[in-house]
């Protein structure tokens, strides 16, 4: 269960979003919408536990967060990269993951030689390898071709069907049956925050 009440989120010591209340039950997903810079990434980082909530309460299960960067070591092979993240989370590497993200043919390629889309698939497979219930995906569809996006959705639906949760920040259309949360109305007023400080 992911639940937030009156949550406010800060970036660089300034609140960017406030008054967020939502609940995502196991098996559910939430899609974050809003213009660039509204605070989607800041919210995802707070949900991941990387930054403390600015205000309000947050109850979140163990999460795995993927930012804009792929988080792969260029000198290690695809398999070694995935194996590391699985081991770090105390799990064996599920071989079907390589197939789910179409990485099996690239298994022994150093991650530094992958294309942008292939690197993105590795980044998403890395999250899957952690086995964490809550997935926080920041623009997961960026650089993915149509087939890869379909593959991701297929895997994501299976993850949700297994009782997992997901919060996604996306701009484009997403063929996923999930409620959307528009962040624009929740943007914190920077002047208001300043006035409160003074």
């Amino acid at each position, binding site marked *: 269960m992911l639940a937030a009440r009156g949550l406010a989120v800060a970036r660089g010591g300034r609140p960017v979003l406030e008054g967020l209340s939502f609940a995502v039950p196991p098996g559910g997903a939430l899609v974050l919408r809003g213009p660039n810079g509204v605070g989607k990434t800041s919210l995802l980082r707070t949900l991941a*536990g990387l*930054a403390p909530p600015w205000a309000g309460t947050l109850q979140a299960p163990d999460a*795995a967060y993927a930012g804009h960067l792929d988080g792969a*070591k260029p000198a290690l092979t695809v398999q070694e990269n995935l194996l590391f993240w699985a081991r*770090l*989370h105390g799990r064996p590497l599920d071989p079907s993951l390589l197939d789910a993200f179409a990485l099996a043919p690239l298994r022994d390629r150093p991650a530094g030689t992958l294309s942008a889309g292939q690197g993105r698939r590795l980044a998403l497979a890395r999250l899957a390898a952690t086995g964490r219930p809550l997935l926080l995906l920041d623009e997961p569809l960026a650089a993915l071709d149509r087939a890869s996006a379909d593959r991701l959705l297929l895997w994501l639906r299976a993850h949700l069907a297994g009782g997992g949760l997901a919060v996604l920040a996306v701009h484009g259309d997403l063929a996923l049956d999930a409620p959307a949360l528009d962040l624009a109305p929740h943007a914190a007023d920077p002047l208001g925050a300043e006035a409160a400080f003074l």
Partner: protein
Amino acid sequence: MRAVLLRDLRLSLRQGGGFGLSLAFFLLVVALVPFGAGPDLGPLAAVAPGILWVAAILATLLSLDRLWALDMEDGSLPLLATAPLPLESAALAKAAAHWLATGLPLALAAAPLGLLLGLPPAAMAPLALSLLLGTPALSLIGAFAAALVLGLRRGGPLLPLLLLPLYLPTLLLGAEAARRAAEGEPALAPFALLAAVTLLSAAAMPFAAAWAVRVNLR
């Protein structure tokens, strides 16, 4: 913890940069000093332990800024910070990997290199011992300093300035222990204090480094 240690070791071996560069730099400094200091071995032998220690510190500095920065640049740090492994343990594993890739080879190479500086054979074992005892502290303190400058765009140049005062106790004790042992004076006190510095660093620095990483990730 083993996973982080093995990954960092594998990376430093595969990417060059860390492992090879530090050792090559160390060799270069120690090989060049006799040419700069002239042919008289007498005064050189007297300062040889000090020269080897200074060279070891400079060589360690060379690879320190990559300790956390690489993970920050490629985006693996957030996932590492939220992993079930406490970040403190990850910091300890990273410092250990850094030591195995730089400090240990330096300590092993120092004694034979001492020959170039006219170091008497009897002084080789104590010199290697002082480096073995002291270089772990360099990696541990360095892991903290490297985490501190993580948020800066060009943190690398700041690192030596930050580390200069932090490395002084290790350098003083290490060079003194090696010098005293080389000259046949009682050296138990500096060796014991050097070990104390390393143990204290091992106890405190992982926490300090993890704290600095968390602050920089916010």
